[in-house]
């Protein structure tokens, strides 16, 4: 069965510093990978996704993630964070379930706290 491990439960960082949120997955088949962001008292919003092609994917707000098949990782990075990036970040892998449905398996989340 697939699983997702987010190695850091909390990441404190100062504003304008770089940040990396780590995500490893286990799977014996091809995967689709996602990063979702959850702001306080909100639902999850898609940040970026990897389906195929280029292993480096970018979001519109400066985040990027690199798919590394050999290391089964999909780490999220941003070169310079803002206070507004403070949120919970979830890594997820999509499994195509029997009967045809997208089953998203989530990691436990990483709380990014950006300090001035």
């Amino acid at each position, binding site marked *: 069965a697939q699983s997702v491990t987010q190695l850091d439960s909390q990441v404190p960082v100062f504003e304008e510093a770089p940040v990396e949120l780590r995500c490893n997955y286990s799977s014996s088949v091809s995967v689709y990978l*996602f990063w979702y962001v959850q702001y306080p*008292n909100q639902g999850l919003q898609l940040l970026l996704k990897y389906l195929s092609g280029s292993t480096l994917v970018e979001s519109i707000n400066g985040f990027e993630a690199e798919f590394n098949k050999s290391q089964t990782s999909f780490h999220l990075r941003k070169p310079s964070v803002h206070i507004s990036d403070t949120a919970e970040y*979830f890594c997820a892998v999509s499994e195509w379930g029997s009967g045809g449905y*997208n089953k998203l398996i989530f990691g*436990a*989340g990483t709380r990014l706290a950006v300090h001035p």
Partner: protein
Amino acid sequence: EADIYQTPRYLVIGTGKKITLECSQTMGHDKMYWYQQDPGMELHLIHYSYGVNSTEKGDLSSESTVSRIRTEHFPLTLESARPSHTSQYLCASSESRQGVEAFFGQGTRLTVV
């Protein structure tokens, strides 16, 4: 604007009460899902639906039930709420293709006292 809506956002209710959490989407998605999220924990799938009149149990056992009478509507019901049901419940929907993302509602935070 296409979106997915959950009501209520917050609910505090007494033990033994029957509750229904509403979820509606305007994107025409066939697939809909309910996730349960406890603080500091990963999301767990508790129910999903392929389409109208289709419902299945997810990975995490739940005493709740769901129905899918209309494509856009996927309510979740607890016949008799207990404190152990206190959690956040997130509804989501997606297209019927591999690799597509799920779109989430804002969630319902349920507290049973």
